[in-house]
């Protein structure tokens, strides 16, 4: 019963956050300088009447509350609107591209986590200062590079674009995990276990990891959000036809219906991922 209540509470919170996030998106767009101006208004071929018609079309969107309520009502009916730049239903565009982004993000997260965890385990068991320093410098250097620059360097090296996502997620996950493991390794019960002669691997898997599982699960949620955000520059620069590329094209074309819908979908995905990780962490904490 308690678990169901937790899940229900979490779902209510998630729904509220998604609604608030969508409202913030709409408000930010509404109050951004340049709202309501359309590239088409600069077209010299259009008559004064046509330009006026375009202006009155956008003036209907000026009041943020009715605009948001109208958008919400349409969205609940399953109507995400039509892309201004591509002339196609937004839902169709999203369905076409969501699979690609999900595959890229899933693949990148898997590789980054495997690499980060393997290196942390290797550093813990081998106790090699050069290995530790190399890993720290590598992840530190990757943290200093914009993800877009990593993507361009991969294009130059004829590498697959998703490796840029791997690099960015790996750098954060590795840095945080090694800090966590390092800090936990200094705890008195770990020091005592080591002094009793327990093997390093057993120490890591039986004593260290159980102590940091909540933080690791929270990190998993954060890494999903990180990968989804970094997918925009990577997909845009590497020509991967996913949601990120769609968002970039729409931003350049000032296609607000697509941008707003992509934004709330990404918010929903991120919040659900974070909440899932939190829920799992809470559940594990309770059963431990």
């Amino acid at each position, binding site marked *: 019963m308690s678990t169901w209540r937790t899940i229900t509470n979490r779902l209510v919170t998630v729904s509220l*956050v998604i609604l*608030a*996030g969508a409202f*913030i*998106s709409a408000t*930010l*767009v509404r109050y*951004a*300088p*340049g*709202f309501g*101006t359309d*590239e088409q208004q*600069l077209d010299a071929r259009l008559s004064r009447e046509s330009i006026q018609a375009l202006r009155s079309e956008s003036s209907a969107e000026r009041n943020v509350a009715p605009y948001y309520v109208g958008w919400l009502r349409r969205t609940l009916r399953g109507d995400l609107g039509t892309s201004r730049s591509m002339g196609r239903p937004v839902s169709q565009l999203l369905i076409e591209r969501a699979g690609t982004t999900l595959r890229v993000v899933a693949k990148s997260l898997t590789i980054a986590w495997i690499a980060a965890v393997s290196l942390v385990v290797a550093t813990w068991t081998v106790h090699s200062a050069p290995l530790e320093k190399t890993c720290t410098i590598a992840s*530190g*250097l990757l*943290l*200093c*590079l*914009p*993800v*877009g*620059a990593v993507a*361009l*360097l991969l*294009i*130059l090296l004829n590498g697959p674009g998703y490796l840029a996502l791997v690099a960015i997620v790996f750098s954060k996950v590795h840095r945080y995990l090694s800090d966590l493991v390092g800090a936990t390794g200094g705890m008195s019960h770990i020091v005592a276990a080591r002094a009793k002669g327990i093997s390093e691997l057993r120490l890591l898997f039986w004593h260290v990891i159980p102590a940091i599982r909540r933080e690791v699960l929270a990190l998993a949620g954060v890494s999903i*959000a990180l990968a*989804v*955000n*970094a997918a*925009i*520059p990577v997909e*845009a*620069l590497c020509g991967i036809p996913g949601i990120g590329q769609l*968002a*970039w094209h*729409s*931003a*350049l074309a*000032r296609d*607000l219906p697509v*941008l*707003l819908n*992509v*934004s709330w979908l*990404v*918010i929903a995905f*991120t*919040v659900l991922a*974070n909440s899932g990780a939190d829920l799992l962490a809470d559940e594990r904490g309770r059963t431990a």
Partner: protein
Amino acid sequence: MKMTRIAALAVISVITLISMVGSLLPGFDYRLQDRKHFSEGPSYEHWLGTDAVGRDRLARLVHGARVSFLLAPAAAGLSVFLAFVMGAAPGFAGGVTERIAKSMIDLALSLPWFFLLLMVRAVLPLNTSSGASAAITFFMLGLLGWGVPARILLARAKRLMQSEFVLLARASGVSERRLFCVHVLPNLLPVMMAQFWIAVPVLILAEANLSLLGLGVAEPLPSLGSLLRDLESVLSVRSDLSNFAPLLVLVAMVSSMQIAFAKREVC
């Protein structure tokens, strides 16, 4: 570790000094186009070569660094100020204010800000000047980057409010205003400074990512991010390694900042 920090500080100081002084030198104009030299490699006249429209790459690099290093701290200042309002003040006040602030911070941390930034940047008027686009880009970055520092400041303020010296001050009848200004605020300042220095490289990188997508600082004004767009032309990268100069400066600057200002003990 102390030597590494000193070296890192030296790198930051040198790059900042060059960008500030260099951009004021006469003839070092980032807009000036040499009609005889397009997309050329390094030469005596143009040490880092010229771009596709004949502008001196070194002049643009120096000006670009100045734009990033001036506006990123300003944006970081805005972020930390907002974090103070949304984190430190509610942490001091406690009760309902703190609960509301916590919910707002959770909301801010859940949102994919890069998407929101992309959206706002997309609707800027087409005739926005390059200076205004730079200011708006960094303003938006500052406006959206308060979540993490606010959470840290709230936690620190809450911890301070439960500390013995605050309890003693309260028991001695010190007013709330004096308690905040004389006892709590000075203890929060180091955390705020640390958050400020952590935010600067993060904002420089965020601007670089936006500019790489063509949605950051608009032409002709350069920034480190917009200069990285030259890397997009793969062929020019292959023919001329000087295209990597902005990337090297960016990496040197950001890594130096991370080393020099990594104050984990106060975070």
